[in-house]
């Protein structure tokens, strides 16, 4: 996948839209600028108009120069929020998100957000100030070796100590962030490099042409073999991951599925890449995927993995994963091939390009027998589904998700936190469009939702943005409510409040003999908390109140918070215990059992 942006075009746009007359003088190359000016001028050239940050001593020269450039700076309340906002911005827009922090604690506070972006392959550029180059390595005030700290959680990072290296390094950082398998890049800039001056020429600072990973390989024989496997498969399943959206292969995956009548199972990050309403959509696979999805995977004779990496939450116990299936893996990162699951055909390249090459070899195919088998396997499960339960006065999170989805619709962007509510959202909010679900998958970073939603709102100001968070995760980054107010953002917040760290409680219920150690959680009255910020809100206790409350939030002129007081000890079903095989799932309790019933998929 080549770099997506057209920096030259962006540069011209940015030049044309600068606010103050004369501001553009800095951008007309070649000019002699300070490092701080070069920083912003390069960002403008790369198409950046919004950054998320927090000032501090070592980055103050950059902040001083900011007023001369057409960039909106969003002041966060904690640098973790800045990194998550940049991440949410990138996920919602497909562009590179930018976070800024000072040296030392500012930089270390970014780390969770950087790791989140790393695990989910999100293109962000984090810029940190550092102490002057003369005192690097002396434990100067607020000095931290942030390139050392972030080395394992960045795609790459740079330390810039010379003003003349700044523009080229920044442009290189953007190239790395968005090329190939995207990821976070950190650029650490010493204070003297910001204060010094150098000749700035955006064009001259252009990085060398992007070199794709040398082990990308899509061979004629592999394509032919893949086509042959698809032609002969009786029980094929497409596994669609995050790569479908990253490479923009939605149409191609759909064409493959429709032409060969192959059902599509999605990873958590893949949700939205294939419409939930499509008859071939099976739903989410893995630990909290529906039984028929995982059952279909276990019974399949061919898996076509598209832009996914066989994560442990998806495969369960590897030694028992899809043993009957041949496997085709289409993936842009050669290091993912045969990492967890041994595959028969590896097509290592950009998903869209590979599918474009593969599709002409795929003929129409009758898949009805297999599709009928899967349909039949849904059986009674759908009936037992909680969303079909009559209203008995209890408020279930599943109800909230279901009703939210019906009202907010498939255009809304939903940003979830991590835990039970995240899984309920994935199960009951049916995403029809790409980039409408933003969630921390690989890292599972609690506290992600609120700041990531702020980033998403800046990326898509015209879309409805919903935060869905648990009472635990919300409190981790609740300080960003002030950011919402300061930036006058209309963001809807739904807290799924069950008084527990719910997923912890669930694991303790299932696997630790209901020893609810450190799971009960006292929270503030979230409606009052919102009120303290000037954000209106409402508590919701019954199902009948859900729809009116959601409508009220949507009608509100600004942000609105809904505190859903849901059943305290509800669990996410079905569930595959960690380390178990896909067919060893804990199913929804039936009428006979009060305790979770261990059933086999064949039941």
């Amino acid at each position, binding site marked *: 996948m080549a770099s997506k942006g057209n920096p030259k075009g962006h540069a011209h746009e940015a030049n044309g839209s600068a606010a103050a007359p004369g501001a553009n003088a800095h951008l007309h190359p070649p000019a002699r600028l300070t490092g701080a000016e070069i920083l912003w001028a390069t960002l403008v050239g790369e198409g950046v108009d919004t950054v998320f940050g927090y000032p501090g001593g070592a980055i103050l020269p950059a902040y001083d120069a900011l007023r001369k450039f057409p960039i909106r700076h969003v002041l966060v309340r904690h640098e973790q929020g800045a990194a998550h906002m940049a991440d949410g911005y990138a996920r919602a827009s497909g562009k590179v998100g930018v976070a800024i922090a000072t040296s030392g604690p500012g930089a270390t506070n970014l780390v969770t957000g950087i790791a989140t972006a790393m695990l989910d392959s999100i293109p962000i550029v984090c810029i940190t100030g550092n102490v002057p180059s003369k005192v690097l390595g002396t434990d100067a005030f607020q000095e931290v070796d942030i*390139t*050392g700290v972030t*080395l*394992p959680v960045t*795609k*790459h990072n740079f*330390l810039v100590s010379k003003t003349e290296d700044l523009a080229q390094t920044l442009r290189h950082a953007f190239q*790395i962030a968005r090329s190939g398998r995207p990821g976070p890049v950190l650029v650490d800039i010493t204070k003297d490099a910001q204060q010094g001056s150098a000749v700035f020429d955006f064009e001259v600072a252009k990085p060398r042409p992007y070199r794709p*990973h*040398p*082990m990308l390989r899509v061979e004629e024989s592999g394509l032919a073999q893949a086509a042959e496997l698809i032609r002969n498969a009786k029980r094929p399943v497409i596994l669609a991951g995050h790569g479908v959206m990253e490479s923009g292969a939605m149409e191609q995956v759909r064409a493959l599925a429709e032409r060969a009548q192959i059902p599509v199972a999605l990873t958590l990050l893949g949700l939205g890449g294939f419409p939930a309403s499509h008859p071939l959509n099976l739903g989410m696979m893995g630990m909290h995927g529906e039984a028929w999805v995982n059952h279909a995977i276990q019974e399949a004779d061919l898996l076509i993995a598209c832009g996914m990496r066989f994560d442990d939450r998806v495969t369960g116990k590897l030694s028992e994963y899809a043993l009957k299936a041949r496997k085709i893996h289409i993936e842009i*990162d*050669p*290091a993912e*091939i*045969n*990492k967890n699951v041994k595959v028969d055909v590896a097509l290592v390249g950009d998903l869209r390009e590979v599918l474009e090459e593969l599709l002409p070899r795929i003929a129409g195919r009758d898949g009805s027998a297999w599709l009928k088998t899967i349909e039949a396997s849904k059986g009674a499960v759908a009936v037992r589904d909680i969303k079909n339960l009559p209203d008995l006065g209890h408020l279930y999170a599943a109800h909230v998700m279901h009703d939210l989805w019906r009202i907010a619709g498939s255009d809304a962007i939903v940003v979830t936190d991590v835990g039970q509510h995240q899984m309920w959202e994935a199960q009951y909010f049916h995403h029809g469009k790409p980039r409408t679900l933003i969630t921390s998958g690989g890292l599972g970073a609690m506290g992600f939702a609120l700041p990531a939603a702020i980033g998403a709102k800046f990326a898509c100001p015209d879309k409805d943005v919903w935060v869905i968070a648990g009472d635990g995760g919300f409190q981790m980054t609740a300080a960003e409510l002030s950011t919402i107010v300061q930036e006058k953002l209309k963001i809807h917040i739904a807290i799924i409040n069950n008084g527990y760290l719910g997923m912890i409680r669930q694991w303790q219920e299932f696997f630790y003999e209901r020893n609810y150690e450190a799971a009960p959680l006292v929270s503030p009255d979230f409606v009052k908390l919102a009120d303290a910020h000037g954000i209106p809100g409402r508590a919701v206790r019954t199902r009948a109140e859900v729809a009116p409350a959601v409508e009220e939030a949507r009608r509100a002129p600004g942000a609105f918070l809904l505190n859903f007081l849901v059943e305290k000890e509800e669990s996410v079903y079905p569930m595959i215990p960690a380390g178990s095989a896909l067919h060893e799932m804990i199913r929804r309790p039936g009428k006979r059992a009060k305790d979770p019933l261990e059933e086999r998929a064949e039941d």
Partner: protein
Amino acid sequence: MLHTFVAYVEDLPGVLTRVASLFRRLNINIHSLTVGRSERPGLSRLTLVCEASGEAGHRIRASLFKLENVVDVDDIAQAPAVTRELALIKVAATPRNRAQIFDLVEVFRARIVDLTSESLMIEMTGVESKIEGLIEVLREDEGRILEICRSGKMTMRRGHHVSSVLRAMGAGDAEEARETQENAVES
């Protein structure tokens, strides 16, 4: 099995950390790592030997390529290659018992590069097994070895030779080539 990777990396601060960090992350111990300038300006060449499963080679090479500063990676595996290691060995030796060492050095085709009244230093280049052979013999005399400094393996693929050429290139070299290949097969 033992894997040998040869890589060209940018000659910049921190690059070695990135390479080493990759192996640390994969929980793979590095047996040896040699780095030096190469024929390509601005690029260092390294030879890295590590113990990992047979299938790990592909992933390690792919992961090395993902490092921004890594320009080229070769997994030598079992390809015909010349591998050498340099060792400096300081042994206790007085004028009275030097002669025995001189003989040993002769047999192993090593060199004496420093000589004092209490010690001498042996320089030896060769495949790992040959260096270990010399060390073993020297150890037979307890307390004789004072210091050992080994460079770790350096490996270079052979050119495209037919086997008759390999034979014609001389017994010593051919012998070492055989050893190299045997080592590769063993591991």
